[in-house]
């Protein structure tokens, strides 16, 4: 058993409480300790990304071996899919925490911020790494509760209102998820994802199975803010401090929502046509509705938050197309293409949406406003912010050299090959509207001349913030190489394979 696997949970968890104790005694320790922890996790997750490949690695906490073939330990599983998600979590986490070194110095009780941040990372890593349903729930709660506190970190009226809304809907989601898990445990008598698949593959009550699927889709859909469940997202993501918005939008809705939905509906439940139609519809709905809600916004962070809903729609849509193809049992290569496109867009979205929120934070840091109408002409005073935000805007709207273009292209090609022409056309139209709304953002924030330009003394933001933005914009550019044939096979394909062949996941884990 690889001893590095549990470190994804232990290190940030222990770090959070060390920060709370030592942070009171030593000044500035909190920032550097949190950055070091995240840097360590980034290197470990990269090491796993390069070495995992097709292997499925299992770590049994407590060393409990299966009894009569029934797993009783807490399983921590690493395969091609979740190493990718772990990389996203820890890279965006590191960049955000480095960004906060100067950004958060305007707030009081900073060590609470870094402690909660590490706790949120521990929760998300735990969700992704856990191989059993109940521990997914436990870690989900750790990350959700720390994010409630982080959204309210400014303790102003707006923040408190947003966090209250987020908390009520988050608690509802947790309740629905727990109910679903309880119903599964009642019938299957086990909580291990691989084992549940084995138990249900020998026959089940269809209505009961459908009820569980709907409950879990609603619960994790609420966490992922897919369209009918999106009400909390724009408020929570726009009121939080900017590095936290980058974490919430870039990572949390993926790790706690989309990742679990994909994992459960591919690897735990048998893929049925009804569910795949439902998931594709929800994806298309959030893709289209999200962008129309976004284009009218004047608050930068609200605009970005609505775009998160729309871009997550792309991911859900293409994964849904993949499910549909698998359920029909024809043309597996199209299914593989659609799923690979979805996962690729998932990674890309983390990079460019994280960057856009950091840009918004930089603008707010210097000008003190989030309203697009009050900005203008910032391109001269803040050249780096302008350049990086241009890169991110082009990436999100799918302009060629950037990563967003390739993932959207793969999704559209997969939709056309699967003969869902309407969905392909919708994806193109949504992409054009996205471009329009980001051109608006660019024009009003950076190029439009403001009247009182000379009165205000605006300077570029300090180094740590610049560094984070530059790193993310380079990542945005570099990620496009994932679409190249040689690299795609080593990074995207293992993830797709584990989802394409669901019985492989189950048999490998229960076999070990």
């Amino acid at each position, binding site marked *: 058993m690889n001893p590095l696997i*549990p470190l994804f949970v232990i290190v940030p968890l222990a770090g959070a409480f060390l920060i709370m104790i030592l942070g009171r005694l030593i000044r500035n320790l909190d920032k550097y300790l949190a950055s070091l922890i995240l840097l360590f996790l980034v290197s470990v997750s990269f090491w796993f990304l390069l070495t995992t490949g097709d292997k499925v690695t299992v770590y049994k906490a407590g060393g409990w071996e299966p009894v009569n073939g029934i797993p009783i330990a807490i399983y921590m599983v690493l395969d091609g899919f979740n190493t990718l998600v772990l990389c996203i979590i820890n890279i965006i986490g590191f960049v955000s925490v480095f960004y906060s070194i100067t950004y958060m110095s305007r707030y009081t009780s900073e060590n609470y911020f870094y402690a909660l941040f590490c706790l949120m990372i521990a929760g998300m890593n735990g969700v992704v790494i856990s191989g059993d349903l109940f521990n997914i729930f436990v870690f989900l709660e750790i990350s959700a509760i720390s994010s409630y506190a982080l959204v309210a970190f400014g303790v102003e009226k707006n923040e408190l209102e947003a966090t209250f809304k987020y908390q009520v809907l988050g608690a509802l989601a947790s309740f629905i998820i727990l109910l679903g898990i309880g119903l599964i445990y009642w019938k299957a008598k086990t909580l291990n994802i691989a084992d549940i698949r084995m138990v249900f593959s020998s026959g089940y009550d269809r209505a009961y199975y459908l009820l569980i699927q709907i409950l879990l889709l609603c619960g994790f859909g609420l966490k992922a803010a897919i369209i009918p469940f999106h009400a909390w997202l724009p408020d929570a993501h726009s009121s939080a401090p900017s590095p936290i918005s980058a974490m919430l939008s870039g990572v949390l809705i993926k790790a706690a929502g989309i990742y679990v939905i994909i994992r459960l509906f591919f690897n735990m439940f048998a893929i049925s046509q009804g569910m795949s139609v439902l998931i594709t519809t929800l994806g298309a709905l959030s893709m289209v509705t999200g962008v129309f809600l976004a284009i009218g916004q004047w608050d930068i962070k609200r605009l970005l938050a609505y775009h998160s809903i729309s871009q997550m729609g792309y991911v859900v849509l293409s994964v849904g197309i993949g499910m549909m193809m698998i359920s029909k049992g024809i043309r597996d290569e199209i299914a593989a293409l659609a799923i690979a496109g979805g996962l690729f867009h998932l990674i890309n979205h983390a990079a460019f949406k994280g960057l856009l929120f950091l840009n918004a934070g930089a603008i707010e840091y210097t000008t003190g406003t989030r309203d697009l109408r009050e900005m203008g002409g910032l391109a001269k005073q803040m050249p780096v912010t302008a350049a990086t935000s241009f890169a991110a805007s082009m990436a999100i709207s799918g302009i060629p050299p950037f990563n967003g273009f390739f993932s959207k292209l793969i999704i559209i090609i997969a939709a056309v090959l699967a003969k869902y022409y309407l969905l392909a056309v919708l994806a193109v139209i949504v992409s054009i509207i996205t471009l329009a709304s980001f051109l608006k953002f660019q024009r009003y924030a950076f190029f439009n001349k403001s009247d009182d330009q000379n009165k205000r003394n605006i300077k570029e933001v300090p180094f740590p913030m610049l560094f984070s933005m530059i790193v993310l914009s380079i990542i945005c550019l570099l990620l496009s190489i994932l679409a190249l044939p040689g690299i795609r096979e080593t990074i995207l394909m293992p993830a797709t394979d584990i989802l394409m062949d669901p019985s492989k996941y189950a048999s490998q884990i229960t076999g070990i």
Partner: protein
Amino acid sequence: MKGMTVIVKKTTQLIAGLVFLYGIYVIIHGHLTPGGGFAGGIIIAGSFILLILAFGSDFIRLTKEETGSTMYENLAILIVTFLAASGMLFGARIFFINWLPKGTAGELISAGMLPLYNIFVGLEVAASILTIFLALIIFKEEMPE
């Protein structure tokens, strides 16, 4: 907040110690009898809350108390994490493994690591429940009239 009458104060003085001892009993017999770290921790926190309610918040300095309980809470959870991680250094080198000798079943000192986990989980629960309670009272005291 002023304290309550002399009768209540005297009775609380007599009871609080017993409640505290009972909490300790539940924690250290956690691996033998029903209960354990969580239940015992709640009972211990209950004894402190009883004292604060009876004597009033003027009697103790709440913010100082809150700093102390937060500190205990963080220390306890850190120790639990290190105990779990210590499994990666000793014995079979697996996270959360019970590597201490198991002893005879039914004895007070047995079951390897479990009593240690119980003690620190109890400390953690007691401190965190007390912290939540104190945070609520301090918030009420600070509210403008």
